[in-house]
């Protein structure tokens, strides 16, 4: 054991309701070192960080094993405050800054320097006056450490994003005992030049002896600054390397590598069918956190197309844009016909259907019965399940009998476990809720079905059922299916082709049987540059 480590995480395990999300992770960080932690979404990075910060949610659910050693002493971090007291700081991905406060006030938020006044001597400490000059002095010092020349009395609102990031960091290093700083995807919101400045600042901090844990998916940034790199996959540490040993290919392959179990025996040859079901040209979608930037893609008739990529890269935005849920520009052709964008109605009328990734937010009427959930969209757009009122054609009433019959059929076909068609969907399990969403989409008899994150938040048994169902729809009913998923393994097991999205663009389209290295590079946005080099 090397006594020179600041932080040692030894064999950390964590279970969520019998589901092991961390399987014995070991991580060692030296003082003054930049240590990169890389891995796909769901690899366990955030769970690990939550354990390090003593987040109540993590500790409340229990099932944590292993040991945390900080500064040579075994510690138990039971609360965020304990982490703070040890000298562990976090630079949040979303800024925790008050827009109307000045830079100084934000840096010193709830750590204000105060001094007594006559009233506070009687009434207590909370009426102490703020010592603004002292606060400003501290703030300026912290800003200067980062190499930032800016008036510390400017309000945050109106500052460029890059500055805000620096203020966040300044707040952390202003804490006197800071020893370890965690950067969670700090460059995700920054422009390239700003990101470079941030990396410089990180190096500078490390040079002052502060250890840095750097969580990112930008592999070239990792190579540029990290002294050592730990790769996580599926809750396990799959690799560790020093700066000298690391290459992009090596990291990428480690991140992705896994056994693939294909549900379908063969991938249909891409050349099988050249008829295009949907042709997307220059599509740009403004979906916060999942921006799509000017992509073009053809969806072939009868295929299962996968859309993969890391979270936040824009894969989710594609289906949402085509279905009209988020503002988009560009052109989408179905056959020869051009579809109007930004109109869910047009999309549905043209036999497109969508199972949203946000099941509870967009996919379901949580306080409405299963049968109405299933029938709703078809009723409103397709005019199904309607009857006239007392023979008056103008008054259209819901036809409860047909709705009930259809719902019962769907419950049987998709094996939705419920007390009956009138149960409200809030009370269903995740898997059964997902089946209701699928049932609603199928009720519209779509030609092209978009399914986003079909297995998110569903237990393992139900996952397989949902994936089997998608394959069945494709193979038996000939439906064209576009599956968007953060789980690459899932895509590789059911899709005919997989498009990987990186920073809002299609990085490449791969066969499900392509190598792990190819996938790793594509996910990291390095596939096309390497192809050019070769």
């Amino acid at each position, binding site marked *: 054991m090397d006594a020179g480590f600041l932080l040692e995480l030894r064999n950390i395990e964590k279970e969520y309701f019998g589901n092991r999300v961390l399987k014995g992770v070991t991580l060692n960080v030296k003082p003054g070192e930049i240590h990169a932690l890389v891995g796909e979404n769901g690899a366990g990075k955030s769970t690990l960080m939550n354990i390090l910060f003593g987040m109540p949610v993590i500790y409340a659910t229990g099932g944590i094993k292993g040991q945390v050693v900080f500064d040579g002493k075994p510690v138990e971090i039971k609360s965020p405050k304990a982490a703070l007291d040890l000298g562990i700081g976090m630079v949040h991905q979303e800024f925790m800054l008050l827009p109307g406060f000045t830079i100084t006030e934000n840096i010193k938020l709830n750590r204000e320097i105060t001094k007594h006044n006559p009233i506070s001597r009687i009434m207590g400490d909370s009426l102490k006056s703020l010592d603004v000059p002292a606060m400003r002095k501290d703030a300026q010092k912290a800003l200067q450490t980062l190499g930032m020349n800016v008036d510390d009395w400017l309000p945050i609102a109106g500052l460029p994003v890059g500055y805000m990031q620096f203020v966040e960091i300044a707040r952390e290093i202003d804490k006197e005992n800071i020893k370890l700083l965690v950067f969670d995807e700090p460059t995700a919101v920054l422009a390239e030049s700003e990101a470079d400045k941030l990396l410089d600042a990180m190096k500078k901090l490390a040079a002052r002896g502060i250890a840095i844990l750097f969580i990112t998916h930008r592999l070239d940034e990792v190579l540029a600054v990290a002294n050592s790199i730990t790769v996580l996959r599926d809750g396990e540490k799959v690799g560790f390397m020093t700066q000298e040993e690391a290459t992009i290919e090596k990291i990428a392959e480690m991140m992705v590598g896994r056994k693939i179990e294909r549900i379908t025996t063969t991938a249909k040859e891409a050349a099988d069918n050249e008829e295009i079901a949907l042709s997307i040209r220059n599509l740009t979608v403004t979906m916060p956190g999942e921006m799509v930037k000017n992509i073009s893609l053809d969806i072939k008739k009868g295929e299962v197309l996968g859309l993969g990529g890391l979270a936040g890269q824009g894969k989710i935005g594609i289906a949402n844009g085509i279905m009209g849920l988020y503002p988009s520009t560009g052109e989408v052709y179905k056959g020869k016909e051009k579809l109007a964008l930004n109109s869910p109605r047009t999309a549905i009328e043209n036999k497109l259907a969508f199972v*949203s990734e*946000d099941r509870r937010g967009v996919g*379901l*009427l*949580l306080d*409405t019965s299963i049968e109405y959930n299933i029938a*709703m969209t078809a009723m*409103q757009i397709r005019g199904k399940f309607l009857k006239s009122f007392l023979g008056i054609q103008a008054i259209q009433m*819901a036809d409860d009998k047909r709705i009930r019959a259809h719902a019962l059929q769907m419950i049987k076909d998709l094996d939705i476990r419920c007390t009956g068609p009138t149960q409200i969907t809030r009370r269903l399990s995740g898997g059964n809720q997902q089946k209701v969403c699928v049932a609603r989409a199928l009720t519209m008899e779509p030609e092209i079905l978009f399914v986003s994150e079909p297995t998110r938040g569903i237990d393992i048994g139900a996952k397989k059922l949902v994936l089997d169902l998608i394959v069945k729809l494709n193979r038996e009913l000939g439906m064209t299916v576009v599956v968007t998923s953060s789980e690459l393994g899932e895509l590789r097991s059911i899709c005919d082709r997989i498009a990987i999205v990186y920073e809002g663009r299609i990085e490449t389209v791969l066969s499900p049987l392509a190598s792990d290295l190819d996938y790793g590079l594509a996910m990291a946005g390095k596939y096309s540059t390497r192809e050019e080099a070769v």
Partner: protein
Amino acid sequence: MNPMALWKKLTDKYGFPKVCISLMLAIFFIGAFMQKQDVAAMLADSTVRIAMNGILVLAMVPSIVSGTGLNFGLSLGIITGLLAGCIAIELDMRGMSAFLWAVVMSIPLSAIMGYAYGWILNKVKGDEMTVGTYLGFSVVSLMSIGWLLLPFKSPEMIWAIGGAGLRTTIALSGRYAKVLDDLFAIPFFGSKLPTGAVLFFALFCLLMWLFLKSKTGVAMAAAGDNPKFAAASGINVNRQRMIGTVISTVLGGIGMLVYAQSFGFLQLYQAPLMMPFAATAAVLIGGASARKATIAHVVSGTILFQALLTVSLPVINAAMNVGNLSEIIRIIVSNGVILYALTKVGGGH
């Protein structure tokens, strides 16, 4: 089953306000029997007040179902109802035809008002209740000036001396007072049951029930339950909210006219100010929430609330001699119930 478990089961099933009010009502009825009060007259009286207030309470349903929440701006509809009621007198109409014409005239007026109100509500999503309350207050006080300035001429309505402006209370006797209440009235232990008014209320409940089963009604409910879902299903959420608000306002107008014919007076100026709160409280007592309301909630809530107000007054007055008690109970119960509902909506953050 132990009492605590029973209590919990009941409040879970029917909601805390409904159980509490039912209990209070039961106590008052027992008290009435013990004091040997004329319970039959109380029942008949309650029925009159239930039929009188029912449609105003029903007006809460479309607004809650379409997702704009409790309609504290119902006074907008009430005002158009009053206006139509005045116009009917100005046109020198009498009896049932005066009432029906007033209803017919109130509908376009309310629809216009509701459209403007709905337009505003669509601009302030999330704050409908706060804005609605003060919008209602503002329009009521603006209309107070209106009542003074509107060129009504009928001597029954304008101040006897001075001439300008409408009276605060306009008597409807000889016009359309009690036209619904007296229609097919049934004698009941020396009192009368207002069959016509009850049927009128039932008719509107039936229409509302049918509407909620129609294609539009279903779409409106979807927009209220989950606007994002509705939008993704190609439903125009703003339009559904607009429909809900317009229907609510129209029902407010009709409800006001039913109220007035039973009460026997049109009350102008500041009188409509707090009326929406009583209607809101009734539907909440029935078990509705700021997000969910059904016809059953309306009917049971109106019955419980109005019966409570009717029965409590003589019972308490017999116990101790103080005035104005019914008013105090109305204020405490209605605002208490609304407060309870607000805490149940949950924090915004």
